């Protein structure tokens, strides 16, 4: 049986299906650059849904209230940080384009504000973020206004405990209590947020849940729920539950596997092909061939070989979890092209002795180097190839988890990389 190879021609190929990869595709679509995106199931399904720009600066105490001012200080504190050379205007434009796109495609987000929002974590701790889904927006407002509120959780649901949320917040939010209810028609065994969210797309399930919520709300008018309010029409589901209960309802992220990330991934998988983007999800690029006039991506799925012929490529393959970087006994390598990786000199320097050491671990700043046009550097210190660009957390000199800047780095560097691609393609 002969296999039929499939070929695609495109201006830009984006490798990676995390926030950076999806953001790059959005910016490319906005610039009318024909785009193909390919990447294994990325880490996007693990996101809380919050889009952080910058929540903490290395060497400074306290959380960042004004990320725009703090980004400017990165230039002094962390001059090699990927955000330090990007103007706040560009970062803001990138966030606006990204959140606008999400909103137009059915997942409404708050626009980037002048300051960070104090948002609730799945454990009921507080964190700083810049933009959040509209389904979550009333939570921080209710907290700021200290409104009486009930956190409702569900029998059989792991990864979200109302009791834990209330315990962590009780000193800061005195009018908070929790109630546990059964999710309609799921009364036994472990239940997952994903399943609950899909069930809430059904009118009858919403009606039953609304009744159960009304019972435990008593006189309280604000209800916090784990993030389960629908998968494909979350804003509608929330509005319907508010209509049915007469209460204000908001979502709090849950531990992975959580709904906000699955929402984003499934939305992208729906919308991108409709917008003319060639999306090849759940596949890794096996190899790249660079030619004078194009780059060829080699992929293989269940059905056989696929090749993508692109004029430019953005590498947004992430770090260890997504497979962009690989850790070996001898050191850290970049998985696809063996690009040089900036990393601690010795393996024993990867981690400090204490996991929670406030200084953080050196391995978390490992990554590839790029020039001012976001072209990854090769072993000779020069751009690896004029058609190759890089974006996202594969870039070195940042510890995105500790600095609460994962989405900021992904979105802003993707924006700049696409800008550079556009200049290259249309110079």
């Amino acid at each position: 049986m002969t296999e039929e190879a499939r070929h695609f021609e495109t201006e830009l190929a984006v490798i990676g299906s995390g926030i950076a990869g999806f953001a790059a595709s959005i910016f490319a679509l906005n610039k009318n650059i024909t785009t193909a995106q390919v990447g294994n199931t990325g880490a996007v399904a693990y996101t809380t849904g919050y889009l952080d720009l910058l929540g903490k600066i290395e060497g400074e105490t306290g959380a960042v209230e004004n990320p725009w001012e703090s980004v400017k200080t990165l230039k002094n504190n962390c001059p090699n940080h990927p955000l330090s050379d990007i103007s706040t205007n560009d970062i803001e434009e990138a966030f606006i384009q990204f959140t606008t796109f999400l909103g137009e495609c059915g997942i409404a987000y708050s626009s980037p504000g002048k300051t960070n929002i104090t948002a609730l974590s799945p454990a009921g701790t507080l964190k700083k973020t810049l933009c959040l889904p509209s389904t979550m927006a009333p939570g921080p407002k209710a907290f700021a206004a200290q409104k009486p509120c009930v956190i409702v959780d569900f029998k059989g649901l792991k990864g979200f405990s109302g009791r834990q949320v209330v315990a962590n917040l009780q000193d800061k939010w005195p009018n908070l209590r929790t109630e546990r209810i059964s999710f309609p028609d799921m009364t036994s065994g472990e239940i997952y947020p994903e399943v609950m969210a899909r069930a809430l797309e059904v009118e009858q399930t919403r009606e039953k849940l609304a009744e159960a919520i009304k019972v435990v709300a008593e006189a309280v008018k604000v209800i916090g729920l784990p993030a389960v309010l629908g998968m494909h029409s979350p804003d509608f589901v929330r509005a319907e539950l508010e209509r049915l209960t007469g209460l204000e309802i908001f979502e709090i992220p849950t531990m992975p596997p959580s709904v906000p990330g699955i929402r984003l991934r499934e939305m992208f998988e729906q919308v991108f092909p409709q917008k003319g983007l060639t999306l090849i999800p759940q596949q890794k690029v096996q190899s790249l061939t660079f030619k004078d006039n194009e780059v060829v991506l080699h992929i293989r799925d269940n059905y056989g070989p696929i090749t993508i012929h692109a004029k430019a490529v953005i590498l947004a393959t992430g770090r260890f979890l997504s497979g962009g970087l690989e850790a070996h006994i001898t050191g850290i390598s970049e998985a696809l092209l063996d690009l040089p990786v900036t990393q601690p000199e010795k393996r024993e320097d990867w981690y400090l002795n204490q996991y929670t050491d406030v200084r953080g671990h050196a391995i978390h700043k490992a990554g590839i180097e790029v020039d001012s046009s976001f072209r990854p550097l090769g072993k000779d210190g020069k751009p690896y190839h004029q058609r190759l660009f890089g974006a996202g957390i594969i870039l070195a000199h940042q510890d995105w988890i500790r600095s609460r800047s994962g989405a900021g780095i992904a979105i802003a560097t993707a924006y700049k990389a696409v800008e550079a691609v556009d200049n290259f393609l249309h110079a």
Partner: protein
Amino acid sequence: MSDQKTPTINFKEKAMELLPEGASFEACLTCGLCSSGCPASGLENMDPRKFIRMAMLGMDEELSTTPWVWCCTQCKRCQHVCPMNIDISQLVFIARGNWPQEKKPAGIVRSCQLIRSTDSTSAMGLPPEDFVFVVDDVLKEVRETQSGFENLQAPMDKKGAHFFVNQNSREPMNEPDEMVPLWKIFDMVGADWTYSSKGWAAENFCMFSGDDDAWYQVIKTRVDAVHELDCKVWLNTECGHSYYTMWNAIAKFGMDVNFKLESLVTYYAQWIREGKLPVNSDWNVNNIKFTVQDPCMIVRKAYGDAIADDMRFVVKKLVGEENFIDMQPNRSANYCCGGGGGFLQAGMTEHRRAYGKRKFDQIAATKAAYVLTPCHNCHSQMEDIGHFYGGDYGVVHFWTLICLSLGILGENERTYLGPDLLALID
């Protein structure tokens, strides 16, 4: 129930052998995306994540004997959403094969035996001569009773025909009139096709029983039948797993074949694009809503999204773009309905319906009046869960709606139409 002990498999060893390139159990975060996205999670107190963790912990006896392997439909959705690309369905296949024959679900074993009992490879045991008779009989009746189809053809064993067409046994056995819309479509597009008296049947329960040797034998009979007639294309009709069982086996067993494997859905789309099937949605004056079910076996497990897009193209042409509502999630991310993997024949009705609740929710969320699907197992399961959970949707074959749109759907070919659709014809 037999007293024969189920042998114990070393699942960790098997799992390591099966890991695709680049995949790693060490990197498994136990994040649970697999279980979260699996409709079989919780049945028999098991889920995909638990299965893998138990394998890593060496809990081989428990895994070798858990009936959950008959609830998992091997739909591969767990692998689809796994960042580490871990294929749990292959472990389930090995576990199924390891069960003593006497302990396996009798419905699956019996169907496999029947498939191997005649050259038809029919899970209902319909022998070649009976198939030939039924086709001939139905054809005669159509020619005599349906105006415009006096010369309708249903070629049998026609050497050198372009298409070798298979058929799910349910049609010749239980509802032979359901074959007619397909013949009419072939007639309209001028297809050069044939049935074969040997290897004509679509279904393969030997694959579901985890029996490699039996699976191979079934496919060999079918491959030999296509070669014997020297056809260019083995055309899979509206049956999901029949495509996968043939396509996968050819690669898995390294079989030498000189024909192409194609799905009828692809040709529906092609013939509509070429104008050979001049369908339209003008008939849908009441804007009846339709959704589509992507069979795992031809979408996620074989072709990928390309065939799912073809299906949507066809449906939109048939019912009107505004009357098509996609299920969520869909295409390669779609949920298995619970009719696959032999679940319908495994005698585990309560579990199967619990599994199907997610599909029911998906369909209910669309508020569609009908689900279209090119798969018999999907068809039966969605009908059953619809009745069980109180849904009011119908399930229809593509061929039915194509012929309805073309105004050539005979009176005996309307079994799956509800009063709303029947009213538009009469």
